């Protein structure tokens, strides 16, 4: 029979200790998320109604709804996606499928990583200089969305490249040996098999762009607009900036209002994510390896 020595017991105790410790840390990690969501739902929940979403702010933005900000955030995210996803995927395809391993490729990779590390306020100033002033887009949805797109590009590129590289090399080799060109291989084999991973990058981008405040503050978002944006040349209100404004600038805002706005913002992001995640799960189910 196996007799547990003192050393065995000690190891067992340590094993349990560390297991519990790591579990506690993980739970600690979830705690802020749970607390934030609970607070938002508890304090902001009563604000939410169809009226809140579908009417304009009134009475010096202390009453009424958030329609212009809600619509504005959707405009900003969608235009940013249209601008950044094709470029990001194209760049990732080049880097992953075509680029030889030389100094240029390494320089590009370095640039992408550095771009990801640039603080959002610096992107904002770049956006003002480049899109608002140099390209003469003015303060507009286009300028703000392009700024957001530049900021989100590295996320798309890195996650897409990782998704592409997760496709087994053997798939490509099999395809090539049938006489297919690189592009045919990408189109028929690599892209379909990496779509779920690419979507992950897009999800991350949506979350990030919808919540950003600094890059849109100077480039296209306004304190107050009495109209809904109609074209990309219009300025817009946005949920994130609206939240900032009513919590720091407007006197006598009812306490529930900022919580309500925050709840809408977070629900918008989560529901956009949920759609992509559902699609991703569906695609993963069809994976062939």
């Amino acid at each position: 029979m196996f007799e547990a020595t003192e050393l065995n017991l000690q190891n067992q105790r340590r094993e349990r200790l560390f297991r519990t410790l790591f579990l506690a840390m993980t739970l600690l990690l979830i705690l802020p998320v749970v607390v934030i969501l609970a607070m938002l739902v508890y304090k902001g929940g009563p604000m939410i109604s169809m009226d809140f979403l579908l009417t304009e702010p009134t009475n010096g933005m202390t009453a009424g709804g958030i329609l212009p900000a809600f619509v504005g955030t959707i405009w900003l995210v969608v235009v940013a996606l249209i601008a950044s996803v094709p470029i990001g995927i194209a760049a990732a395809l080049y880097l992953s499928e075509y680029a030889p391993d030389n100094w240029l490729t390494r320089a590009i990779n370095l640039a992408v990583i550095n771009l990801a590390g640039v603080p959002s306020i610096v992107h904002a100033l770049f956006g003002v200089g480049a899109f608002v002033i140099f390209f003469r887009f003015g303060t507009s949805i286009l300028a703000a969305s392009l700024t957001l797109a530049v900021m989100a590009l590295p996320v798309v590129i890195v996650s897409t490249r990782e998704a592409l590289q997760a496709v087994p090399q053997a798939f490509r080799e099999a395809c090539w040996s049938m006489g297919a060109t690189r592009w045919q291989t990408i189109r028929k084999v690599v892209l379909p098999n990496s779509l779920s991973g690419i979507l992950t990058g897009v999800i991350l981008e949506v979350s990030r762009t919808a919540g950003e405040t600094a890059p849109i503050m100077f480039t296209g978002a306004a304190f107050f607009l009495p109209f809904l944006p109609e074209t990309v040349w219009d300025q817009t209100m946005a949920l994130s900036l609206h939240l900032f404004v009513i919590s720091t600038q407007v006197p006598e805002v009812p306490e529930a209002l900022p919580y309500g706005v925050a709840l809408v913002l977070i629900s918008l992001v989560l529901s956009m994510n949920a759609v992509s995640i559902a699609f991703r799960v569906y695609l993963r189910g069809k994976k062939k390896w």
Partner: protein
Amino acid sequence: MRKTLMLIALVAILPVACGRPADQGQAGDSSSRKVIQNKGSDTLVNVAQAWAEAYKEVNPEVAVAVSGGGSGTGISAMINGTVDLANASRKMKDKELEQARANGHDPLEHVVGFDALAVFVHPDNPMDAISLAQLAEIYGEGGTAAKWSDLGVQVPGCDSDEIVVVSRQNNSGTYVYFQEAVLGKQRDFRLGTRDMHGSKDVVDLVEHTPCAIGYSGLAYAGEHVKMPCISSPDGADCVAPSVATAVDGTYPIARPLFMYTSGEPQGIVKDYLDWVLSDVGQCIIVEKGYAPAKPVSCGGDAAAEAPAEDAEGEMTEGETTESSEADSADPQG
């Protein structure tokens, strides 16, 4: 594959194909809607917002886009020619006027109202009156008042006795005006002030800090802070900050609020500015807790046209009757 290429091409040319509608800076747009760009002072931003909100009813075809950021932000936008109306709670400096003229703009100032700069302390603070000289010692570089006991005040809840000096960020018009009116142009703020990024932040901090003193436009100071009256150096009576005392010029730290246009206002910008200065527009600024640029009475029809703001309506009515008798000359003298 051809489809894919076409898609990529489409996306690439989309922004170009849309084309920027000509001359948007001066309020043009592809649709029938015309936009007035209005940017600047955080002191004025809430009034500007209220005006924009109300003007939608007056002229639905004109939309006023309001942004804040501080007087400095509005003025530099005027210099760059990206706004139609720049809000400022201070005058443009000569250097700024030169820069604007160099860019082909000729900023013209319009006084749209007055603001009493309220100094406030924690509600538990027993101090009821403060002089401009005392304020200068608290805020000024090399000032002698660093502790509440230096002013002969014992503040309950403030055990350290140290004055927590709350100020604004330096591109704020409120900051610049306070410096001119209280410290004098040559004297700097002392080091170690807490510089807040908005009037509301100043009020919030002072409200929760027994040791603190702060300043902001009167409209921001709620009932949760205490506003001592201010006595000027000539030994006149101590004057409490209010719309009425700002209008009649007895309150020593009241300032005009400006909107700048590039040259003589024209077209929709002129219409809007005229409306802002009309009785209806001026009653809105009164409702927001500022003093009007000219005497107005806001009873009856005018109040009905302005957006409903019941809570403050009664108070302002009483005060404007008083103010209509008074001369609306620049309170700075």
